[in-house]
C-alpha cells in the first residue's frame, strides 16, 4: 500500500533541496530557464529552427513570440503548466545530481536510479513539441484541452518522481514502504 504521507514529506524535501545552497538554487533556475526555452521553442519547431538557424541572436524574439503564441493557443492554464513543468524539471535535475553525488561517484547504478523517472516525465511533457516536430504543429489543437492534458500528465510524472526522490542527502526506503 502506498504511504501517501511519506510521499508528501519526501516531495517537500525535494522541493526544499534547491534552496539549501546558493549553487543549487542557481543551478535549479538555470535548468528551469533552459527547459522553459526548449519547451516553448518546440511548440513550433520549424519556425524556431529556421529563425535560430539564421542567427542565434533571434532567440529572445522567438521565445517572446512563442510565449505569446502558447498563451493564445493553449490558454493561461497551458502556459502555466509549461512554466511549472520547467521549474519542476529544474528541481528534479538538481535533486538527481545531488542523489548521484551523495551516492558517491556517478556510476551506472546512481544514474539508473534517477534517469528513468526524469526521461519518462520529460517525454510526456515535451510530447507536445515532439508532435509538432514529427507531424503537425496543429496536432495539439486536436488533442483534448489543446494538449494541456498531455502537459499535465508529464507534470504529474515529474511530481511523482520527486515524491520518490525526496531530499537526496537523506536515505529513504520508499520502495520498501510501498511494497508492504
Amino acid at each position: 500500500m502506498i504511504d501517501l504521507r511519506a510521499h508528501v514529506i519526501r516531495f517537500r524535501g525535494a522541493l526544499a533541496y534547491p534552496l539549501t545552497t546558493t549553487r543549487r538554487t542557481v543551478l535549479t533556475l538555470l535548468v528551469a530557464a533552459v527547459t522553459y526555452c526548449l519547451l516553448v521553442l518546440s511548440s513550433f519547431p520549424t519556425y524556431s529552427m529556421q529563425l535560430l538557424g539564421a542567427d542565434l541572436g533571434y532567440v529572445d524574439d522567438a521565445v517572446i513570440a512563442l510565449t505569446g503564441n502558447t498563451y493564445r493557443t493553449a490558454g493561461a492554464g497551458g502556459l502555466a503548466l509549461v512554466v511549472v513543468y520547467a521549474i519542476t524539471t529544474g528541481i528534479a535535475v538538481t535533486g538527481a545530481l545531488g542523489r548521484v553525488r551523495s551516492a558517491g561517484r556517478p556510476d551506472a547504478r546512481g544514474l539508473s536510479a534517477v534517469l528513468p523517472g526524469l526521461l519518462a516525465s520529460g517525454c510526456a511533457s515535451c510530447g507536445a513539441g515532439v508532435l509538432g516536430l514529427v507531424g503537425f504543429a496543429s496536432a495539439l489543437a486536436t488533442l483534448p484541452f489543446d494538449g494541456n492534458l498531455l502537459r499535465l500528465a508529464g507534470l504529474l510524472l515529474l511530481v511523482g518522481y520527486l515524491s520518490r526522490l525526496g531530499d537526496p542527502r537523506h536515505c529513504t526506503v520508499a520502495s520498501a514502504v510501498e511494497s508492504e
Partner: protein
Amino acid sequence: MERPDASTTRRAVVAGLGAATVTGGVVYAGATLDNRGTDTDTTSSADDVAFHRTTGSTGFGIELDGHPVMGSMDAPLDMYYWGDYQCPFCRRFEENTFPALVDDHVAPGTVRVVFIEFPYLSAGSMTAAVMDRCVWRQVRDENPRRYWAWHSSVYDAQGEKGSGWASRSNLLEITRGVDGVDAAAVETCMDEDRTDIEAAIATDIERARQLGFRGSPAFVLYNRDADEAGKLVGAQPKERFDEAITTVENV
C-alpha cells in the same frame, strides 16, 4: 516515519511561492506581450495596393484561380502566403511585419502576394476560410481592394480559439461592417457553394502539407523567371523576409 524539520518546511514553502510568482509573471507576460512587435507600422500603403483576379497555375504549381493576388502582376517574385484566420501567429505577422513588407516590396512592384487559406485549428477556421473565398468572389470583379479591408477586419477581430468569434454569424456581422462588401451575397455563397469551396481549400491544405508546413503562417517565395523558391515559416521579423526576398531575387 520521516519528519520534515522546520527549515525544510520553510524552504519548501519559499520554493512553492517562488514558483507560483514566476508562473504568474510569465503568464502575465504572455498575455501582455502577445502581438506586440517591433516592426509595427501604422502608415502602410497596403490600402492603396492593387488586387487582381487571375487564373492558371504558376511555375511552382500554385493554382491562382480563386486566390486574391496583391501587387503588380509583373512582379518578378511571388509570395504564396498560407494563413488561418484563427492563428495568433498569423495575426502577429499581419500586424507587425506584413504592412512593412507591402511598403518595401509589394508596392514598389518586386513581390506579388497570393493569399491561400490554410484552415487547421478548428471548425471556425474552415468557416472563415470559406467566407474568405466568398468575399473574394463577391468583390473581385468590381472592387477587389475591398478584399483587403475585409481580410484586415477579420484579423483585427480575432478572438480566442473556441470563443465563437469565428462562427458564421459573427463573421457575417464583421462582413456587414466592411464597406463595399455585400454581406447578403456572401451569405448566399456560404449557403450554396460551401461544399465546392471546401474541396478547393482541401487541395490548398494538401499542397501546404506536401511542402512540409506544419503550422501557419507559412510562405514560399518564388522567382518566376529563375524557377527558384525558398520557404519561410512563422511570424518571423521583417529583416528575415528582406533577406529571403533578396536571396530569391538574385538566384
